[in-house]
Structure formats: structure tokens, C-alpha cells
């Protein structure tokens, strides 16, 4: 036969084959059970006795259940991550070290801006606590008091609470006693019980447009109240000073750094990048990588780290703004913004602070394993800092944005968003009230910043071990101070005091880099092989079996049922036309008889697909009214290659 003809004939013959071969669903099931590759099913059919069959049904069903359960567990645990820790010994990049003086600006340079504020602060202290810096000064201040108008206190009056429960207060400048009706915010009062309510000091912030809308902030100690009050005014004043002036008022690199060593080699102020921090003034970053070059160390130990001697001019400190002396340093990555106010380490004067570092690098898996962000581009908060994303940056940016939206101006401690300007009460008289309200909301997570901001997926961390020693030692103090004074001598003409100096050593304890990374615990290959293991263990099943099940239980059954209904409909239609033919019911029975009668216990022969016993002759043949039999007719046709395939 020509190949084309064969195909044609084949198509012709097979065209009627539109559905499965079994005529009824139960036969299909039986056929499936006998021929499937999964294990339990066959047992059900070939088992003798009801009990045994029942047990097999139960077992098969439980195996299916177990498979479903275990596979569900596998899928649920798919997105878990395993942690791997690797340690590498290698040349390490030295981190950026940012050093700031705790005092932001030289007090002498700030005098002209702050003199009025300081005077009022002193006055307030005197009226509150009867504290004064000496008799003559008091008199002078008292004169000034009468002469000048106290504009700062007027704007935000400091209040002394006579009785918290009665809410009667004394206003500090005027001495007026009055009752307040507004809500009282206790700063920290939930933690500390303010035993004597008479000592409570606070200040009141009012919405200037609506004077009844006021908030009173109380503090358990006057120290906090005065500092907070001072800081508010200070930020107001600073917001009005242009950046350039502020930089000039701060400490220059030559002022701050006396000596510098790195990796056993001398370095100087050129290795430090200046950076202006709103709260800490001029800060200097060592190894900031600004020209694309990051220093590395190939040797651990204090000898090979960064050694600097800092000059802390204690006498030039602002007495109300800063109450501690020293410097603040932070070790960070070159691309990170140094949040020195949040996570800085303080350095004491007259001591040598040695900071040993261990380097740890961590990497988390992002979605769907955990909710972190790789670059921060998917966070709807604009990064106000010119540095790579971090959670801190996001929170600060988010707050600043909210501040600009609600109060119309930007908070001083954070960078300016485009088009905004810093708050000061010349232009924005109610910003402080607004700020406090907003900050309250921010802390209580009502602004939604904490929900929007996600942590960064990868971060570098330097674990610091800080230890202190006395420096200079009593015997070397003499020459040390002399030489350092000489060093400094070009600019100032005085002998240094050891409380003006701080020695700082930052070094790698060892060059082991710990790299902690999350890896997916599962991948699709492992998941599938686990599936395979489960399927195989309980039922010796595979994807093929699953496809079989779909094929038999859904597609074929559907066809059979459809055909049944089709035939019924046809019969009904025929019945409408002519007398109904009584063929279907007995034929089915007869057809089912040999294989599927339960009372006739399934013998081994039936299990082995044996045909019916000998005595069942051709007479038993059911009437050929099934569509399948048409197929049979097709197959008996001598089509050699098809026969071959069909029979095997």
C-alpha cells in the first residue's frame, strides 16, 4: 500500500473513534484499575471478598490522602530559606569612618546668633531653679531682662506645673498663674513616675490659628525640658543660616585632626572628606571613596588600622545644646549615609579608644522569601539622601515628606526635599506644634512610614569591640602634649590640655570576612523530586499516572457520560417518533455480567485478564449496539501496522 493511501485509510477508519473505548463509566474504571501503573487500584479490583476489597479501598484512599497532605506540606515549605555562613580570609576594604565633634559649631562663632536665646535660657533657669552663674551676672541679666523683650519665651512659654491634677501652671516669664485645658503629653511619664507633681516642667505648643488647640509637653526633669526647649529654638535659628556660614562656623579638618596614621603610613586631612551634618556640624569621613578609590587593609591589628588624635576644644562648647564632651564616630560603608545621631559611638577625651572590628556581610533573599528590598527603587518614598537605600534613610525621608505635606516646611535635621525649605517661625509660625503632632503620629506608627519602608536585603556590618585606656600615660603626658601643641602651634598659641585630646584607633581584629547569605532551601528540581519520592513511596505513581488519572477520570468519563445522555436524548427522540426499543437495559446487564458482578467473586483468572471460561461461547456476545464495537470492526480490518500497535 502506498503510504499516502495507508494514512488516508487509517484516518478514515479512526475517524469514528471520538471517545474512549469503554462503553460505561464503571467499565472505564475497571479498565483503568486493571491497566494503571499506580499500585493500590488494581488490588481493589482483584481482591476477593468484600472485607479485603474494603481494606484495599481504605488503604488506597489513605495513600492518596497522605500524598496530598505531604505534597501540600512540600509546597507550603517551598519558600523557606536556608542560611549559609562562609568565612573568607582576604584583603578587606576598610570601611568609611566618619568623625564628628559632639559640639556642632564653635560657640564663639555662634555667639552672635545665639546670644539672645542663651540669655533667656539663663533667665528661665534662674526663675525656675534660682540658679545663677554668679552674683554680678545675675544683676546684669536682670537688667537685660527688663530691657529686652523675651521673644523666645513668649513664643513658646515654659510652664511650671503647680499641680498636675488641677492643671494650674505658672508661666515662666510673666509669672502668671492660669489653668490649662489642653491635652498634656508626658514625655517619658509612662516609664518614670513623677512623684512630686510640683516639680513638673514643660512647655506649651499652640496652633496660632486656633489658640484653643494646644498641646502641653511635660518632662519629669527640668534638664530635659530646658534642653528640648532650647533645641527647638536652636533649630529655628539654624534653619535661617545659610549652609556656607554654618560650615565656616564649624570645625575645620585641621582643627579636629591632629595626627593621622593609616596602615602604618602617615595620612593627613586630605584623606578626609568633609560632610556637613545638620546636628553635628562639620564631620569628616575617612576613606569615603569619593574618588572611586577605597583603601584596603591586608593586615589586621591595631598597628595597621586608622589611628587619629582628635582635638576637642572643650572650652568652646555650647553649654545648653551639648552636655557631654568628646567626639562621635561611626563606621559605615562608603555608600551608606552615616546616621551619626542614631548609631554613633562616643569617644571620650583623655583616653585612647581602640575599636576592633569584625566584618560581616549579610544578604537576605528578597521576595517571595522575605519582605526586603534590593535597591529601594520599589519603595514609594523618594530617597532624600544621596546615598544607597537603607531603612533609616527611608524612614527619615518618609517623615520629611509628611512634614512638608502637612506643615509646609522641612524639618531641620533631615535633608531638604526639592522645592521645600527649612522651618523657621518667621515664615511658618505654627511649625513646631505641627512638628510635635506629626512626630507623635510617626512614633505611634500612624503615618504609615513603618509599613511602607522595608529593610534592605543586603547590608554590611562592622561589629565593634570598644575598649578604653588612659592616654596619654602620666609619664608620657608631658612630652606628648608639648609635641602636639607644637604641631598645632601654627594656628593656636597655647598649650594643649589632655582633656582636649582624644586618641582613636580603628582596626580590623582579623581579616576574616563572614558572609551570611540566605539561599533558597528548595528549588524546583528538589521540590519535584520530593514530589516524586512521595508519589512513589505511597502509590508508585508518577506524572504519567497523574495524566492517566486526568485522562480517565475527567476526559473519558465526561465523554462517556455525554454519550449516555446523547443516546438517551436520541432514544427519547426516537421514542417520540416510534415505539421505544427495549434494547439498552438488558444489553448493559449482559455486557457487564462476565466481569463486573461482585457476587461472582473475582477469580484469579479475572485478575489476570483471562477471558471468560470455556463454556461461555459466542452466544454470550452482546448485541453490537455500542459505538466501541464499531471500533472493533475497525480493528479487525487487516491494517497491519495498526493492528500491531493496538494489540500490544
Amino acid at each position, binding site marked *: 500500500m502506498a503510504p499516502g493511501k495507508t494514512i488516508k485509510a487509517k484516518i478514515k477508519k479512526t475517524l469514528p473513534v471520538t471517545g474512549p473505548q469503554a462503553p460505561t463509566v464503571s467499565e472505564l474504571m475497571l479498565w483503568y484499575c486493571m491497566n494503571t501503573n499506580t499500585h493500590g487500584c488494581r488490588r481493589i479490583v482483584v481482591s476477593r471478598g468484600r472485607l479485603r476489597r474494603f481494606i484495599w479501598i481504605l488503604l488506597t484512599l489513605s495513600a492518596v490522602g497522605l500524598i496530598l497532605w505531604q505534597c501540600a506540606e512540600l509546597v507550603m515549605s517551598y519558600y523557606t530559606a536556608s542560611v549559609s*555562613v562562609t568565612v573568607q580570609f582576604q584583603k578587606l576594604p576598610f570601611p568609611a569612618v566618619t568623625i564628628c565633634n559632639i559640639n556642632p559649631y564653635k560657640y564663639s562663632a555662634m555667639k552672635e546668633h545665639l546670644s539672645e536665646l542663651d540669655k533667656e535660657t539663663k533667665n528661665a533657669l534662674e526663675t525656675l531653679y534660682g540658679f545663677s552663674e554668679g552674683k554680678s551676672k545675675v544683676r546684669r541679666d536682670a537688667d537685660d531682662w527688663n530691657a529686652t523683650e523675651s521673644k523666645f519665651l513668649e513664643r513658646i512659654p515654659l510652664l511650671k506645673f503647680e499641680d498636675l491634677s488641677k492643671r494650674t501652671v505658672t508661666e515662666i516669664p510673666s509669672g502668671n498663674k492660669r489653668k490649662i485645658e489642653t491635652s498634656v503629653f508626658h514625655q517619658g511619664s509612662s516609664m518614670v513616675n513623677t512623684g512630686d507633681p510640683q516639680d513638673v516642667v514643660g512647655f506649651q505648643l499652640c496652633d496660632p490659628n486656633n489658640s484653643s488647640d494646644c498641646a502641653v509637653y511635660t518632662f519629669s526633669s527640668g534638664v530635659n525640658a530646658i534642653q528640648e526647649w532650647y533645641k527647638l529654638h536652636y533649630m529655628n535659628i539654624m534653619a535661617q543660616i545659610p549652609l556656607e556660614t554654618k560650615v565656616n562656623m564649624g570645625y575645620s579638618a585641621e582643627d579636629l585632626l591632629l595626627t593621622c596614621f593609616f596602615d602604618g603610613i*602617615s595620612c593627613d586631612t586630605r584623606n578626609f572628606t568633609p560632610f556637613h551634618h545638620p546636628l553635628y556640624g562639620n564631620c569628616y569621613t575617612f576613606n569615603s571613596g569619593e574618588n572611586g578609590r577605597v583603601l584596603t587593609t591586608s593586615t589586621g591589628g591595631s598597628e595597621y588600622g586608622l589611628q587619629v588624635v582628635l582635638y576637642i576644644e572643650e572650652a568652646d562648647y555650647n553649654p545648653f545644646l551639648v552636655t557631654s564632651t568628646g567626639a562621635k564616630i561611626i563606621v559605615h560603608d562608603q555608600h551608606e549615609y552615616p546616621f551619626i545621631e542614631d548609631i554613633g559611638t562616643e569617644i571620650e577625651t583623655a583616653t585612647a579608644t581602640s575599636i576592633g572590628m569584625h566584618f560581616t556581610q549579610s544578604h537576605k533573599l528578597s521576595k517571595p522569601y522575605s519582605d526586603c528590598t534590593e535597591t529601594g527603587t520599589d519603595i514609594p518614598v523618594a530617597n532624600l539622601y544621596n546615598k544607597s537605600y537603607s531603612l533609616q534613610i527611608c524612614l527619615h525621608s518618609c517623615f520629611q515628606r509628611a512634614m512638608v505635606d502637612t506643615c509646609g516646611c522641612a524639618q531641620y535635621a533631615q535633608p531638604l526635599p526639592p522645592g521645600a525649605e527649612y522651618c523657621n517661625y518667621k515664615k511658618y509660625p505654627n511649625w513646631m506644634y505641627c512638628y510635635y503632632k506629626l512626630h507623635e503620629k510617626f512614633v505611634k506608627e500612624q503615618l504609615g512610614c513603618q509599613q511602607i519602608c522595608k529593610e534592605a536585603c543586603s547590608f554590611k556590618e562592622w561589629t565593634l569591640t570598644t575598649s578604653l585606656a588612659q592616654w*596619654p600615660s602620666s609619664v608620657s603626658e608631658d612630652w606628648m602634649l608639648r609635641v602636639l601643641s607644637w604641631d598645632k602651634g601654627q594656628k593656636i598659641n597655647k598649650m594643649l590640655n589632655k582633656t582636649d585630646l582624644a586618641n582613636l584607633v580603628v582596626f580590623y581584629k582579623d581579616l576574616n570576612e563572614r558572609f551570611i547569605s540566605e539561599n533558597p532551601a528548595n528549588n524546583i528540581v528538589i521540590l519535584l*523530586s520530593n514530589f*516524586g*519520592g512521595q508519589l512513589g513511596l505511597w502509590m508508585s*505513581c*508518577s506524572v504519567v499516572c497523574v495524566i492517566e488519572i486526568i485522562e480517565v477520570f475527567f476526559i473519558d468519563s465526561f465523554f462517556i457520560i455525554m454519550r449516555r445522555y446523547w443516546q438517551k436524548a436520541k432514544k427519547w427522540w426516537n421514542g417520540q417518533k416510534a415505539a421505544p426499543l427495549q434494547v439498552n437495559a438488558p444489553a448493559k446487564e449482559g455486557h457487564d455480567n462476565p466481569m463486573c458482578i461482585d457476587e461472582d467473586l473475582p477469580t484469579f483468572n479475572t485478575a489476570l485478564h*483471562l477471558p471468560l471460561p470455556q463454556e461461555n461461547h459466542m452466544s454470550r456476545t452482546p448485541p453490537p449496539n455500542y459505538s466501541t464495537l464499531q471500533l472493533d470492526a475497525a480493528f479487525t480490518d487487516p491494517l497491519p501496522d495498526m493492528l500491531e500497535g493496538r494489540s500490544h
Partner: protein
Amino acid sequence: MNFKRYFIRVLHRLQKGPGYTYKELLVWYCDNTNTHGPKRIIREGPKKKVIWFFLTLLFASLVFWQWGILIYTYLSYSVSSSLSIGFKTMKFPAVTVCNASPYKYSKVRHLLKELDELTEAALERILQSKHGDAISAPPLNSSETVSQRLDLKLWNQIPLVLIDESDPDHPVIIDLFETNQSGSGTQPNNSSPALSNSGAPGCYDKWYILQSTSILSKVPLQERIRMGYQPEDMILACLYGAEPCSYRNFTQIYHPDHGNCYIFNWGMDEEALISSNPGAEFGLKLILDISQQDYIPYLTSTAGARLMLHEQKSFPFLKDQGIYAMSGTETSIGVLVDELERMGYPYSDCTMNGSDVPVKNLYNEYNTSYSIQACLRSCFQAQMFENCGCGHYLFPLPEGVNYCNNEDDPDWAYCYSSLRSSIRHRQFCIDSCKETCNDTQYKMTISMADWPSEASEDWIFHILSYERDLSTNVTLDRNGIIKLNIYFQEYNYRTISESAATTIVWLLSSLGGQFGFWMGGSVLCLIEFGEIIIDFLWITIINIISWCKGLKQKRAWAQYPDTPPTVSELVEAHTNLGFQYEDTITPCDEVPSPGALPPEPGTPPPKYDSLRVDPRAGIDSDSDVEAS
């Protein structure tokens, strides 16, 4: 002969495959294999047959692809880490305490006298240069007389110079004791061995250390130990848990940087002490006296005790990992042992005991274990010897090498500083040293408080002075006294241990899982497949043989008309026999053996697909029935 017969029989047995044509073989395989796909191919209708054929192919290729991934994963030797945190009874770490100053000034003054005088004079000179025109001012008379008094021998080896960088292109180098301006116009860092330092104190430190190193390296070790701080002077009180201890519990070690150091619980001769309770009460409490008055003024400007926690039998590298304790304070150190246990080769590139590192560990003389610091230092010392011909004073000596000093090796200091700043040499050492597989770090939480308090100061000083010197005078003061508490924290260990993420068991079960998932197969199925291939080969061989025989026969026929029975007939006989035999031993035979199926003419008409073979079976040949 016997053997040959046996061999032939075996061959014949092997020949008995399930069919004698490729088609039969394939059909038989598809029908009888335990992998799930092939059976479907031959059991289904023609359309589905095609679908099943492609599905089977697809699954087979999927299986092979995933196997490739799995094997690749296995060969990448990844590890999985497990972390455990808690408290357990652990060995208390070895505690090394040193004084920041290596020697008592009173004992070494005679050696350093000249140097000190020189330094003082130089200082004087520098400080004077502040006044007036610093650089070009002629030396004052007073300093001239000073310099005449001094022995300038030391000076001339490494002169201190003042570099005027007011003109950055032509720095002027001025020797402090020479009136002439020597190195005008030379670049200090390139052409002459000058080290430029921005800060004068740092420069002094370095210079002084170089000089004193050279002087002290000539002093024998015993003498140097005697010049350092003695244990009974330094360790005033010691309490471990509830048990008193004394300076005798400390092992003395000579550390080149810090002089005499004392190690508690080093575990060299005795069993290491264990601590089974957290908290300061069960830790080590020490009171130290560092007697700051006796410091060498120019050598160390930092005052305090240097201490370090390390493992038993490891050398303390105080410069790297040591911390300071400040005098006049009580320093409390809470310890968390952070261990990292790693698998060795091939999982990670680390060394178990350092025996496979090409650098000879010079710290073996202390009987200490390998560490990366020891390796780096040994490597540096070896390079130092190679380049400069002598050993550096800070590191132990290899055999047959002497320490550098100014007399024997006049240019050692230059050689040393150029070697130290050479990136290439450092990189060489970093490359040749490997880290240890078990890495233990002691994480410390340090807190400080003033000690003794003003109220208790009196009696504490009295008692301690009495105990040390048996005198009623107070010989101690705030500047010298240090209290130390070292103890385990509530959680005293954090262990990260590695285990192989992919073992051979994992590999096998994953391979099995994949094969099972896609095709329901197992190793036996692979063996089945191998068997089929063998059969295939046999059939091929038989075909070739029969073809050859046929060819021969044709020729023979041309010669002899009567022929012997053909080979193919013989083969058929064999095949039939073997087929029945094979059928009974098929290992994972789930299909009911249709061998027993008699071809019945009176069989009822088939209702099932599988049964439909019957009518045809009667028509077909015997072997065909068996194959179905």
C-alpha cells in the same frame, strides 16, 4: 574444552532475548517495562499513542535535564549551616594579661639613656623651630652644646628629619642636628629612606620604637624577662569562681610588644578550667597593678593593661585582638563564645591543623596551635630573612637566624619598612595562608565603672599594698590599679556548624525522586533498559551473522544444491526457548503474563482495549501472542 562449552552455553543463554526482531523487542519492552510512559504508548488509541509518545519523550528528557542539575548541585559541594545558641558547661577561655609598657623604665633606663637624651634634645629642637622662622633659623647655641654632648652614633643611623612641604614639589629635608640642608629637592618617599609623618608624636613613636628595638634586641631574653613586670608585682589578687588563685596560676610568656605577659588557664600543662555557671560570681576576678610611673615615656603613651581572651593552646596576638583596660576602673567583660565549625576540603578552603600550609609555623616553639595570625607572621619573618638577612624583633626566629640590630645590619630598618609597605609581599602571605576550619571568637560585652570608689579607696589600697610589699605605706594609686571581671554571659555559646548540604544519599533520593516523579522509574528500570540494549545488540549481531551466513549460503548454494538448516531457524528456536525462560524471571512484572492465554476461537467478543488482542492473537504468530 569444558570451559568453552560452558562459555558457549552462556552465550546462547544470553542470546535468548524477548524477540528476534527490533520491533518485537521494542514492543515487548514497552509492554513489560515498569517505567510508566511506554506502556501507554502501545495500549492507547492511535491519537493518544502519538500524544503519549511525545509525552514519554518529554518526560525522559526532563528527567535527564533535572538529573544534570542535581549532579551539578552535588558536585558544587554546598554546605548547610545550623545555628545553636544556649548555655552549656564550657572551657573558660585562656586570659592573657599584659602591661601596656613592655619594661620597667627603672630597669632599662641605663640601656636607653643615650636614646632618651637624644630624643629629648631632638624634641627641644623641634619645639624651638616653632618660634621664628622654623626651617631656616640657625641652630641656637644651647642646642648646639647639647648636640655636642650627645653621642650621635645612634642618631646617624636613622636621623630624624624635618620636611618642609611649603613647596610641595621640592620638599626640603632638614636633619635636626645638622646645620646643612641635606636632601633638598629629593622626594622623601621615593628616593631616600625617609618616612614622612604628618603628626610629630606618631613620628616620634615610630622612630623611638625603631631605635629601642634595635637596642633591646641585643639584650638576651632572660635579661629582658627580668626587666619586665614580674607576676607578683602585677597580679595582686585573683579569684576564679569561689576558688582563690594567685600569680602562680599564670603561665609566663614573653611577648615582644608587651614584655612579660601572663596567661591564665592556658591549658598547656594542666587541664583547662571549666565554667558551668553564667555570671560574674563564677568568672575570673583579677586586680592588677600596672604602676604607670614606671612606664618608658617615649615608647608607650597609652597606659593600661592589655588583655585578650583566646582559646587554650593558642598564641595570644595582643596587637590584633587585645583590648585595653583602663586604670582606676573596674572593667566587666561578659563573654559569648562564637564558634564556627566548618567542613574541610572540598567544601571550603580551610585547614584543620595547618599542616597543609606551605609556611613553616614559627610559633610552634611555644607549642601553640596553628592560627592565621601565626601563619601571617611566620610568613613575614621568612620574607624578612630572605630580603634583609635578619629576623624582626617582634616575631619568633627561624632556625639559624639572628634578630636585626643596627650594628650587624645597618640598613635593616629601611628594609623592614619597605617590606612592610610592599603590597606584593603582603599579598603573597595572604595567598599562602589559609584560615582554620574551626574559628572561635570571643564576643565581649564590656562595661566600665570607677573603682575603687572614693569611700573604699583607702582601705583597698592599704590592704593591697600590705599584701604585696608587707608595708604599711600605700604604694598604690588610682593610676595604676585595675579590676577585671571576666565571666560567661547567660547565653555563652553561639555555634554555627556546617554540614554537607548534598550527600550521596541526598543525591540518590533526589535522582530517584525525579525519575519516579516523571516516569515512575527506578534503578531496576534502568537495568531493564540496559538489558534491552544488550538484547538489541544481540539481535544486531545475529542479524549480521545471519546476513553473512546468508551471503555465504548463496555462494554455497551456487555450489551445493542441498543446504543445511538456516541459522535463522536455529536462532528462532533459541529465541522461543529463552523467551519463556525470561518471562518467568522478569523482576518487576506487574502485567499479567499473557503467556498462559490460550488462543481461543470461541472467546467472547472483547469489551476492553486490552482484550481486543484476542481475536487477532488467533491470527497472529505464536511469539506475538506472548509478546502481548
